[in-house]
């Protein structure tokens, strides 16, 4: 049996599949459909300090190859998460990563400290990239200094694994990634959804109640894969690939590009058994290619590329 274990900071996962924030709620909702023993970890819906009602419906719109969502970070808020939901989350037989989002640097620190203080929680993911929450012209996720500040503040509150989830809605994701690494993130999640919208031409109005939303699913895959490729050459902390992963081949593309683990989100909606299928497919690929540990696959396509390049320049 090939070795599928993955390491993200202090967190050891039985395999490199992680279920993406917002797509499995707090976990138990999907318990009858997803076999959580087949996944390495789950990420909870993003928690904010106060409860949030979320956006006006419609919140979903399918589009070719993808899905637009504008949930608006509906969540129970930190207090109810700790007092009520955590018990439910803890029933999930996989590593537990809490996703958090604040509106100030302090809030990120408080949220991180509060959730990682609980032993049920194995790691925290900083969501700085939700495109549905509007800020200034230059959003936080596009500003390396702002991201570093958030990361540093969160880092100071915990020794558990700190994941930083980036946004693809930027011209320079690499500078943000490097700032996050320097500020103490243990791993980078690359990346969240792209901002997008559709219009219902018969109604003459945007399809989403919130006008714009985040594009996930297969349509997003090439963009986030390129982001992983861009970052993996320059940072040394592990990368978790995310965006459009539905098949073992998709997960492998991210891993060969430089990811150490992958997140699966939108694909769960069509196929709750996707994680198990992906894990099996990874093992099969490793056997076929005589690879002993999945860690050995990380960045392989870069190495091929480098070898090729060396060959060309050697001529």
């Amino acid at each position, binding site marked *: 049996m090939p070795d599928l274990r993955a390491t993200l900071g202090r967190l050891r996962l039985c395999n490199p599949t992680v279920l993406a924030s*917002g*797509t*499995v*709620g*707090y976990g138990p*909702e*999907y318990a*009858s*459909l997803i076999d959580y023993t087949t996944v390495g970890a789950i990420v909870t*819906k993003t928690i904010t300090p106060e409860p949030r*009602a*979320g956006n*006006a*419906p*419609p*919140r*979903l*719109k*399918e589009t070719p*190859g*993808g*899905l637009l*969502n504008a*949930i608006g970070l*509906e969540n129970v808020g930190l207090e109810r998460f700790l007092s009520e939901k955590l018990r439910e989350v803890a029933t999930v037989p996989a590593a537990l990563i809490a996703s958090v989002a604040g509106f100030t640097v302090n809030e990120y620190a408080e949220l991180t400290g509060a959730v990682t203080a609980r032993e049920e929680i194995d790691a925290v993911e900083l969501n700085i990239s939700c495109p549905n929450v509007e800020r200034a012209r230059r959003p936080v996720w596009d500003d390396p200094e702002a991201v570093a500040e958030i990361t540093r503040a969160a880092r100071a509150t915990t020794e558990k694994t700190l994941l930083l989830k980036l946004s693809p809605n930027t011209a320079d994701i690499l500078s943000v990634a490097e700032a996050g690494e320097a500020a103490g993130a243990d791993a980078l999640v690359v990346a969240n959804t792209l901002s997008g919208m559709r219009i*219902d031409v*018969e*109604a*003459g*109005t945007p399809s989403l109640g919130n006008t714009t939303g985040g594009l996930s*699913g*297969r349509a997003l895959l090439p963009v986030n894969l390129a982001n992983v490729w861009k970052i993996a050459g320059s940072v040394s902390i592990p990368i978790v690939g995310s965006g459009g992963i539905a098949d073992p081949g998709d997960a492998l593309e991210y891993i060969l590009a430089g990811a150490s683990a992958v997140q699966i989100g*939108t694909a*769960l*909606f*069509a*196929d*709750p058994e996707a994680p198990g299928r992906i894990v099996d497919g990874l093992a099969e690929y490793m056997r076929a290619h005589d690879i002993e540990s999945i860690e050995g696959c990380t960045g392989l396509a870069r190495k091929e590329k480098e070898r090729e390049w060396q060959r060309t320049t050697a001529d």
Partner: protein
Amino acid sequence: MARLTRKVSIDPRNYLFTFEVDRRFPKPLPGQFVQVASSIELTLRRPFSVAGASRPGEVELLVELRGKGTRTLAARHEGSTVSLLGPMGNTFSEPSTGEVAVLVAGGIGVAGLRYLAHELAEEGKRLVILVGARTRDALLLGDLLPSATEDDRVRVAFSTDDGSAGHWGTVCELLESELDALGEDRIASPRLYCCGPPAMLREAAAIAAAREIPCEVLLEEIMACGTGACRGCVVMTKHGYRTVCSDGPVFDAAELVFEEAPNA
């Protein structure tokens, strides 16, 4: 995995599908729905009310062709396998003794009430079934419902927008006159079950509120997870947003906050 055992085209726009499901598939309750993966090209499954599950191991869906998902489903051959998750969601309240169940369906809304209608008829409950459609042709769906009994235990009435069959007008007008008639009847009090387009549901809810009659509506919203996890399918209620997939799809009409829908 379910096997499509029968596909009947009721009219060019509407199909009745029969699926053979796994032994582990729980017996659905009226109001519950299934999530169907009709094509690997589609990112989301498509939710359909269980329109019949009277025989064990069998689930019927009544489907109106709207877009890609429903059309690919209709293109499937009998004998092919289709992934079908469920049953999901809550169910309707039982009518108590002394209550007449008044089912109000608009268009394909018949699909959401058909299983309930058959179950109530089976149980010998008193039942009024009102079906509204645009034209006589669209009414064919009525044949799929329990038929009227001589003793009026089951009554069935129709309305069409163009008057080509039944009452000429909306099903809510028909509802008003049926309620008036039932009003004469001192023993039975009505309980409403509604499924149909948003404007119809809003109107039925208003009628129920005005007459202080209990009223449940089956709602539709675009869904992703179908389990309450993604918070994608919410409707506004007096207690805030609720998910159609796991808090519903059946809601007490009095709890709902109906929007002044601009494009209804």
